[in-house]
């Protein structure tokens, strides 16, 4: 699903440049549940942003679902993002003046799907994350865990190939974190490819493969025995 070869990325910070990614090689197959770990500054978020087409690599190749991602125009990147990827953020990033259902329906709006189907799909995915009753509540009326579940529903709504989660449990307490991981595991069980960036070991252990990043290179890449979140909820 994702093939990354010799990926380099550096940021200019004033006069000196910061080499963040120093040759990343990563191959992720369909249906995998991968966590990218590392201390802050290890380059894990940068890698996720490049995979998410929010940022561009300086060197190296990145192929997503057999489509080479290279020199994309903003328009093309927007279309690919919409078609291939679902985002889950640490700070949820819901639009605060839209209710839960409208937030979930937003990526569908940009796909040009009709209003009626958007509504149906939004409700379907909210149901899936157990928030059907909260469809018409604004984000400010939801708890952190509920907000993240709305965000997961939104990421799923566009039926992406890959789910990208950037510290999805970073702003949540342990119990809620496990609830969210439980959802992600359920989605993965249905065959969706998921990539999670985290620095929490227990969260990483709930995925199937851990990629350790350190100073811009992959230090360790191993498949692990998955801990089911449901056992802890």
């Amino acid at each position, binding site marked *: 699903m994702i093939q990354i070869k010799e990926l380099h990325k550096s940021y200019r910070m004033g006069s000196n440049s910061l080499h963040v990614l120093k040759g990343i090689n990563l191959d992720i197959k369909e249906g995998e549940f991968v966590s990218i770990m590392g201390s802050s500054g290890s380059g894990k978020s940068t890698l996720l942003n490049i995979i*998410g087409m*929010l940022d561009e690599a300086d060197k190296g190749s990145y192929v997503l679902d057999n489509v080479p991602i290279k020199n994309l125009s903003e328009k093309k990147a927007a279309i690919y993002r919409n078609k291939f990827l679902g985002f889950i953020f640490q700070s949820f*990033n819901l639009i605060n*003046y*839209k209710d839960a259902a409208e937030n979930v329906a*937003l*990526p569908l709006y940009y796909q040009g799907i009709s*209003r009626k189907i958007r509504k149906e799909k939004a409700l379907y995915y909210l149901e899936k994350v157990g928030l059907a009753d909260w469809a018409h509540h604004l984000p400010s009326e939801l708890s952190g865990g509920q907000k993240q579940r709305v965000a997961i529903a939104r990421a799923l709504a566009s039926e992406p190939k890959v789910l990208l989660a950037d510290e999805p449990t970073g702003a949540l307490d342990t119990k809620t974190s496990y609830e969210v991981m439980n959802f992600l595991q359920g989605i993965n069980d249905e065959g969706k490819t998921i990539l999670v960036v985290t620095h929490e070991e227990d969260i990483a252990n709930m995925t199937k493969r851990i990629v350790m990043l350190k100073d811009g290179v992959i230090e360790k890449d191993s498949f692990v025995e998955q801990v089911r979140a449901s056992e802890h909820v």
Partner: protein
Amino acid sequence: MKFIFTRDTWQEIFGTIRKNKLRTAITIIGVFWGILLFVGLQGAAKGMENGFDSTFKDLATNSMFLWSEQTGMPYGGYNRNRRVNLEVSDTYRIANQVEGVQFVAPRNAKGVFGDAPPLVINEVKSGNYKVFGDYPIIDKVSRKKLRKGRFLNHKDIQDSHKICVIGERIEKELFEKDEDPIGQYIKISNIYFQVVGVYKRNNTDFFEGDDSIFIPFTTFKKVYNTGNRIGWMLIAGYPKEDIVAIEEKAKTLLKRRYTVHPNDERAFRAFNFGEMFGKITGFVKGLKFTALIVGIATILAGVIAIGNILLITVKERTKEIGIRRALGAKPNEIRGQIILESVFLTLVAGLLGMTVGGLLLQALNTYTKGLDFPFINPTVSLEYIGFAIAIMVILGTLIGLIPAQRAVSIRPIEALREE
């Protein structure tokens, strides 16, 4: 372009606008105010114009009164302060020798310039009223609104008929309420005159009011023994002629005839309606032009205010725009949404301003109706409205482009990072 007409685009825009009410309200106040001022000023200027038009509609505006006074300079062996008297024959001279003159009418009056108004008696009732000796042609310059009967005619002049046209107030004061004055006789300066007409007060009376009596010029001459002397004359130019030039020529002619110094400004005086009217027309034109400039400037300021607030909004909404782009919004969709928001707000504000401006003008019209103020039917022409709308849409788009461009130039990754 298609996205302008899809329901979804508008639902997005309405959603954004509805959920940010305060921001929207502040945004539209600028343009609302601009258009309100534009419509208000244009309408007021038009109302003034209409008001003046109505005031002068009963007056041949290309005309003047001309009279003589004492000379101001010694000339040709005469001392200064010599009294010059105009004569009937002068009217023919001016009519024949000055180019562009349509007609000249001599006038005499009693009780106008300081002398005592003659006593007028109807049986037991009496009063003192101004009396004018006139030619029928005076009616062409300062139109009399006759309520009853007729005005003077040529036959009255020819035969020096002892007839008169009286003002409304005289009718009220000298006759009983249910009495018809037409055909009755009243005594003016001890001579009986038959009343043939009653006139109503006019907007543009200069001396007559509603308490004057008009008698034929020839009769006046006999009754008051004025000989060839005339009080003043009325000179009317053809509609397109320069009345100020006619005034100069007429004065020059008279100066030569009465041996008055060419530079003497005191011997002959004129009250030039054309000149006055020209000044008023110029004033109204200036007013309209100023209103236009001020209106456009305020609209401009309003539109800039909208752009300003949208720009702040974009900064405030950076994160939202970042989210939208992460979810797959194309740059053009973001751009389009912001421009449409700008145009839509401008238009709503503009239409609101026009409506309120219109109501305001209507209220003003009702308020000034009873007052003695030249203000009638303040309207703004459709061209101006269309022009204002066009300006608003064009400027709304242009001003919307700035924040829109800013919105898409922020990379989604940076926008999302902003906390």
